[in-house]
């Protein structure tokens, strides 16, 4: 089964009118040069959100190497839904050990430990789920037009505002655990971004022009994760894919995809039930892509 934007167009319009009429009023936070006085403390963080699954346990670090590293140390011994959160990371990382800029006081860096009961091959929707949770939370809380680029990039005005690193340990037929790492650039000002990424990355304060309360945003992201994870657990994958399409900016566009040294281009036709990108070549042939970096060529 394929999912395309067209299929859900009518649904999409009503949703936009219903759920995103105007942003929620921003919390009153005093800020200067992008710094907000929403200081993290263990106590504050521990009461931010407690779901049936997500946030049953919350572990807070002032600073740690990487929250994904901490989560993977706990691994199988940990309780499902455990959140490991840090105010700063010494070696924040993305995929393939790329650096994730992680200064203190300004951003969100946290990892959710999950132990889904499904098969490893069914776990790929977890990355799409994370993108849905973060993008919808940003839209709802700040009113900014955050979008997803396949499969889980989070962009505002074409620049990266948040990142997701999902690491899984599994055997052939069983998932040991999933470390779902999320980093959101919240109150990081432009001058805190290294020059090398300043044209590629952004933050909520840069886009909004005023500070955003990290803790309240975290609470909303966690509640969305709880909702969508429960949706996946009850096997309603289609509902998640619909919401993903609603927040996505890739499908329907002319795109190119780079996989290793190969670059292919065509029309992003839709996504499969596993979350694969369905690419239609000019020849009319169709390929399902499970990896690759997408560049949007033409809207």
């Amino acid at each position, binding site marked *: 089964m394929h999912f395309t934007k067209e299929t859900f167009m009518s649904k999409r319009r009503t949703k936009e009118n219903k759920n995103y009429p105007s942003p929620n009023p921003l919390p009153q936070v005093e800020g200067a040069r992008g710094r907000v006085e929403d200081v993290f403390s263990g106590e504050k963080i521990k009461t931010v959100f407690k779901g049936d699954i997500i946030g049953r346990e919350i572990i807070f670090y002032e600073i740690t190497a990487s929250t994904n590293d901490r989560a993977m140390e706990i691994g199988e011994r940990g309780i499902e839904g455990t959140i490991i959160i840090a105010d700063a990371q010494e070696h924040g990382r993305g995929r393939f050990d790329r650096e994730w800029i992680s200064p203190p006081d300004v951003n969100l860096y946290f990892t959710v430990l999950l132990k889904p009961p499904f098969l490893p091959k069914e776990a790929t929707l977890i990355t799409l789920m994370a993108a849905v949770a973060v993008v919808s939370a940003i839209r709802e809380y700040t009113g900014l037009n955050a979008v997803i680029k396949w499969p889980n990039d989070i962009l505002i005005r074409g620049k990266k505002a948040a990142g997701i690193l999902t690491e899984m340990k*599994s055997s*052939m037929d069983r998932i040991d655990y999933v470390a779902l790492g999320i980093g959101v650039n919240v109150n990081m000002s432009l001058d805190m971004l290294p020059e090398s990424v300043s044209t590629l990355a952004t933050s909520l304060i840069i886009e909004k022009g005023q500070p955003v309360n990290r803790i309240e945003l975290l609470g909303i992201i966690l509640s969305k994760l709880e909702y969508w994870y429960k949706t996946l657990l009850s096997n309603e994958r289609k509902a998640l894919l619909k919401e993903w399409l609603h927040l996505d900016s890739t499908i329907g566009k002319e795109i190119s995809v780079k996989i290793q040294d190969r670059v292919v281009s065509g029309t992003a036709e839709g996504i499969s039930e596993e979350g694969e990108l369905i690419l239609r070549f000019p020849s009319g042939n169709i390929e399902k892509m*499970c990896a690759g970096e997408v560049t949007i060529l033409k809207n």
Partner: protein
Amino acid sequence: MEIDEIKQLLELLKDTDITELQIERDGSKLKIKRERFMSSFEIAPHVKSAASAAAKEEARKAEETQRLATITSPIVGIFHMSPAPEAPPFVEFGSTVKKGQVLCIIEAMKLMNEIESDVDGVISKILVENGQPVEYGEPLFLIEPT
């Protein structure tokens, strides 16, 4: 006996090994005799020995597969030998590995699936090239258990 009937009979015999056939019916008699076809065995006796060598190889492989542990991919994705493009690979041919040690990463929808060894042993074969797509259940490594 009609001529069509005989034709049909000859047609039927074509694909058989029968070299001689005699039919008596209502006083008429039909006898068909032909040279025996040479079988492929007779044409090429070396093919037969090659076939048995292949069978032996098959048996040896089966035995090897029984002895060696096969690590297969639990998901469809891209096979990564190392944690980062410039980093050394997790394992190489001849590497000693422990049970639970990470051997490679399979990437799908940006989910990084770390594949662990389920035995202590030595890497005896790496079956996929770095960066290549793999199917669900595709063998990735052969490990000689220690």
